[in-house]
């Protein structure tokens, strides 16, 4: 499974604002559409750390990295490569 698909599945299944996987395209605005809210961001960060094995610094929890599934997957891949 790709990183984006893993994120899509987690967000769809576990977050209260989650939507069907098909709606959660790579460029779907997760924050603006309130799929990820102030509680959801903590769940999402801990999923990325524990299930995808990438540590996220406090200063990396910013809109640019979490705005869409595409942006978050790119951030995770960059961390893995880096």
């Amino acid at each position: 499974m790709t990183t984006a698909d893993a994120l899509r599945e987690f967000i769809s299944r576990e977050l209260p604002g989650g939507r069907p996987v098909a709606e959660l395209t790579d460029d779907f605005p997760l924050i603006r559409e309130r799929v990820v809210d102030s509680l959801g961001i903590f769940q999402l960060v801990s999923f990325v750390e524990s299930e995808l094995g990438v540590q996220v610094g406090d200063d990396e929890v910013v809109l640019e990295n979490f705005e869409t599934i595409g942006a978050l997957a790119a951030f995770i891949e960059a961390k893995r490569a880096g």
Partner: protein
Amino acid sequence: MAEVLHALLERAARNRPGHPAVSDGGRVATYAELDQRADALAGALVDMGVRRGDRVGVLLEKSIDAVACLYGVMKAGAAYVPLDPRAPGPRLAQVLADCDVRCVLGSGDPVGGVEVLDAAAVPPTSRGPVAAPVASEDLAYILYTSGSTGAPKGVMVSHANALAFVRWTGAAFGVTGDDRLSSHAPFHFDLSVFDLYAAAAAAATVVLVPPEASVFPAELRRFVAQERITVWYSVPSVLTQLASRARLSPGDLPSLRAVLFAGEVFPTRYLRQLMSALPHARFANLYGPTETNVCTWYEVDRPPEDDRTIIPIGRPIEATRVAVVGDDGRPGELYVQGPTVAQGYWNDAARTAARFVTDPRPDLPGRWYRTGDLVEEAADGNLRFLGRGDGQIKSRGYRIELGDVEATVYAHPGVVDCAVVAVPDELVTARLHAFAVVDGDVAGADLARFCTDRLPRYMVPETFELCPALPRTATGKVDRRALEKAALTPAAKRQ
């Protein structure tokens, strides 16, 4: 003209028709536009049969039109019941059934068994004000909060109650037509009453906080700066994030002149950080359960000396009396009497009678609200909040009855016994930890999903721990202290 909440909007629309009333992202509605829109919505509600004294649910994400909906319901003579669009269906159904709404103003999606008026489909033009009869004693809104038995309870607030609070805030914080107030709290949370109506009373502008600013501290800082917010009001957990993670430096956010917080204790360490970063702003702690809106306040006039300083909840607001009921000179339960004290709980005479009491003591004549909060009066006359005498806790400013959460866990067919405890947490006040004894093949994740489907997100425990039995005290009660201690240590590290 009756003294009613929506008269604030009508007066602002007459006196400052072209002034921005609500700003949401790039969109702005002037007072004239907001008032006309509210008239149109009120007309549509009256056409649907809404009458004075009815309840109308409002199930919408925050937006300019959602604000118009609140006013529209009141203009139709009804009380609005703001609903959380994120709440699970069964919880919404419970609330809607309890307050017996005439209809719901929503986005067109069906809501279990209730007539829904699609707000967006109401034509923008109106035939003018509907002039529904309404008195200041009528209910303006009903706010549902967590109830200890698993059923949320509706706090009934009259126009007079809300206006007493709004008038006090206008005087205490000098809100003027030049102010720009943030609107952070959702409409089903009573902090929104300040944002919306203190702004309308002064014909000032209320600016809706966008979703990204609630999630990311850096976006919050950008929002306050770009929108030139002058008055901020929210729960402390948001401000804690701003203080600790937004990299503020002195001189930032020069427009921000007042920072008001309520709902829970502001960790002093972060309050000190925020006050040193914003030396030009005044800070005030507002205290009050939903049943009193705000009943006491404390102006933090200089940064606390050290992290251990406790911020008082202060003294009563205008025209309000408080009493510490316990042994003389000792901590006791806080009782409140005054114009902001609510009318009681909707459809629940027993609970109303238990909490809204008349002549509780010979020296306390009249009607009082028993907060259930344990307080003490300091030598300087300021009240200090000490805690709760029952199972109510605060998390991220939300009020949660542990019994409400436990009742939901119990509802799972595989659960034999359960207890939910609050683990203290500096950033969010408390995190919930559930212990459950189960029969058969039930995992913690199953219970988590079960609760997520039935409870508002902030009430779902973060941890579900299965155990063979709950510890009991000598009298056979669940030993909550032992569980609280256990919850502080990860299960794997316990002896």
